[in-house]
């Protein structure tokens, strides 16, 4: 049973560039969330996609946008990159686990470095 897969694993961009990160959810999961994790910090919620629509959004500027495809995979796009965007970007898919709880399953992340 494949878990959440993300690509690329590492990438380096310069300020002002644009980046696209990709995510395939765990089999059976239809909801995808994206998180930003700065070094030494906990994951910060960016947004969530369900049925190809953005359902929730955290406190991130419009430079951060996303998309979900009919096969539930998702992309995160970041425009006009800033140095402060350097972080580990985590994709998490969610589904119902034991006790009926909605469980988040994370991918290994995409490490973005902005120079």
């Amino acid at each position: 049973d494949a878990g959440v897969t993300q690509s690329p694993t590492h990438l380096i961009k310069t300020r002002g560039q644009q980046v696209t990160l990709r995510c395939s959810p765990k089999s059976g999961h239809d909801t995808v969330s994206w998180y930003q994790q700065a070094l030494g910090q906990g994951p910060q919620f960016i947004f969530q996609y369900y049925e190809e629509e953005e359902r929730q959004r955290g406190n991130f500027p419009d430079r951060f946008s996303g998309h979900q495809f009919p096969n539930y995979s998702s992309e995160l796009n970041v425009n006009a990159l800033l140095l402060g965007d350097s972080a580990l970007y985590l994709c998490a898919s969610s589904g119902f686990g034991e006790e009926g709880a909605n469980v988040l399953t994370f991918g290994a992340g995409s490490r973005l470095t902005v120079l």
Partner: protein
Amino acid sequence: QQQVKQSPQSLIVQKGGISIINCAYENTAFDYFPWYQQFPGKGPALLIAIRPDVSEKKEGRFTISFNKSAKQFSLHIMDSQPGDSATYFCAASRYTSGTYKYIFGTGTRLKVLA
């Protein structure tokens, strides 16, 4: 109201000792409290979780203690091993606006000395 406060920031424990990490929340609407374990270069992985109607849950060497009245919960790692060295995140989740929302603590970096 949306914060989950986690302590300590870092923890060093001898092999065989007990590791204890604490979290506190404010919003009583949260109804699911998971702990995640993250190794360097990896994404967080679900370790153990609890609902607020239960005061304690144990899975192997890992135990969650939950105090609903104090709005606090903690992770206890018994017989800590060097392989437990990782960063641990607590989280709180609730259903709102048609979806589940998670708030994460800031993490505790655990080092278990051999």
